[in-house]
């Protein structure tokens, strides 16, 4: 077995997925971390949760919000508390003091500045789920649809719009006179987020709410939510990493791609415009091949999966720098069909 970049990326994804999704099961249930929060012991013993919106009730292992779709609603909770969209929505609704939000913002900015969207390519559980579906698609020899530059731009604008609309809604329901809407509209973005559907399901929970099939209304919502999950899975199957073009966390992290410490660079004189980099790129980035003027390729779409570096047939054409130091560079390698 060759220890390629892809091998290490898959390995990291699996480890991160296990930690971020199953840590609650591993640590909290086994009692090793239960002492961190008494709710882990008492929660659910006497309370019946009737809300159709919420499933997660247990305490997280670490009270942090890293970049990546790390879902708050995972059964038994994961390694961390949740994603940054959850943090922002929750803070806007509950009017959390800025002093309590700033530490999480600082952590997010530091992590994003250090590695940009590497979180999306190597750590994010939803990204790993998308890659798994993509691997199944390849095994089934189904061709994927290519997302055009215009469609990518449209998804990016839609992402901005959705983010600001849901954030505004979160603020709105935090007003005293509209607080009764919180029961239905609290964390509005989570209602459409595939991580909210996928992560609880793979952790052994329900995608939408704790009721399952208890009543007719619960049955309808459960079926609808499983349908939505199937829709997202089909989307990942049809186009590689389609959600990653829309994901607001990826959008926020992408601001750090250009100017951050991690840099994908190209030596233009070595490039023969063969296009292998574009073919293997899960985000469909075409600028890796087309860029002629700038050496820096770290654009907002790039998730640093490094498939372009791995499969580039030109030695030392592409390289990844961290703090200006070369981490990895392209080398000759036979290219597989995709």
């Amino acid at each position, binding site marked *: 077995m060759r220890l390629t970049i892809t091998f290490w990326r898959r390995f990291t994804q699996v480890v991160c997925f296990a930690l971020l999704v199953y840590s609650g099961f591993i640590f909290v249930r086994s009692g090793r971390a239960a002492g961190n929060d008494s709710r882990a012991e008492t929660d659910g013993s006497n309370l019946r949760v009737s809300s159709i*919106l919420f499933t997660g009730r247990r305490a997280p292992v670490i009270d942090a919000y890293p970049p990546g779709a790390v879902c708050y609603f995972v059964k038994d909770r994961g390694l961390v508390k949740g994603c940054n969209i959850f943090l922002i929505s929750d803070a806007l609704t509950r009017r959390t003091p*800025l002093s309590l939000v*700033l*530490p999480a913002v600082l952590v997010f900015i530091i992590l994003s500045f250090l590695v940009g969207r590497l979180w999306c390519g190597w750590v994010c559980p939803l990204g790993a789920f998308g890659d798994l579906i993509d691997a199944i698609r390849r095994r089934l020899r189904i061709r994927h649809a290519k997302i055009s530059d215009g469609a990518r731009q449209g998804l990016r604008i839609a992402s901005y719009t959705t983010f600001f609309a849901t954030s505004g809604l979160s603020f709105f329901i935090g007003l005293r006179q509209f607080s009764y809407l919180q029961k239905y509209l609290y964390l509005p973005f989570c209602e459409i987020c595939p991580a909210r559907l996928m992560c609880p399901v793979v952790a052994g929970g329900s995608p939408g709410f704790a009721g399952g099939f208890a009543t007719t209304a619960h049955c309808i919502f459960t079926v609808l939510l499983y349908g939505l999950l199937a829709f997202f899975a089909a989307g990942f199957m049809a186009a590689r990493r389609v959600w990653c073009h829309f994901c607001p966390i990826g959008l926020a992290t992408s601001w750090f791609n250009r100017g951050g410490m991690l840099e994908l660079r190209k030596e233009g004189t070595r490039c023969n415009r063969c296009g292998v980099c574009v073919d293997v790129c899960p985000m469909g980035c075409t600028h890796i091949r087309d860029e002629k003027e700038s050496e820096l390729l770290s654009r907002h779409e790039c998730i640093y999966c490094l498939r372009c570096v791995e499969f580039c047939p030109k030695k030392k054409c592409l390289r990844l720098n961290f703090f200006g130091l070369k981490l990895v560079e392209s080398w000759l390698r036979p290219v597989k069909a995709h």
Partner: protein
Amino acid sequence: MSLCLSGTVHAAERRFLDIEPPQKPGTYLVSGTVFFNPGELASADSIRILKTPDLTDAGFEVLFSEEWPGGSGVMSVDITFVASDKELRTNRFILEWGLEKRAKRETVDPGIKLPEVHFNPGREVTVDDVQLPVGTLTVKVRRHPEYYYYWYLLPIGAILGLLIWRKLHAR
């Protein structure tokens, strides 16, 4: 600059239950719903129903409870307990919450059909109403304690400044 505050700290929150005493003699099923603000009540286990004048634990059953989203504690509880018409006329019932101890729970047999009386959470119980265990606490607080947390803005600003500088000079 610091600000000195003094106040009386109650051991728990207490409210009278407004119950209309029944006219007919007999045993009644008293029920009602109590709502709590986010963060006010962590668990339904921390609720008790007390009976005046000696504040004995009356025992009750939580029929249904609902949580605030995001782990902010209990949103509402439906409570029921059994009391005679004499108790409802002569005693007052107090809802107490906030103590970290398990309440006395009783299960009301659903097979027994009792006439029902509903209650509403009434006014707050004060020291004059009952003998409450109270203590006085003097708290010194900063006028703007949140200012201490704003130091986070320094590294945030520095990193964002560095990011913008690098963006402008990236080639």
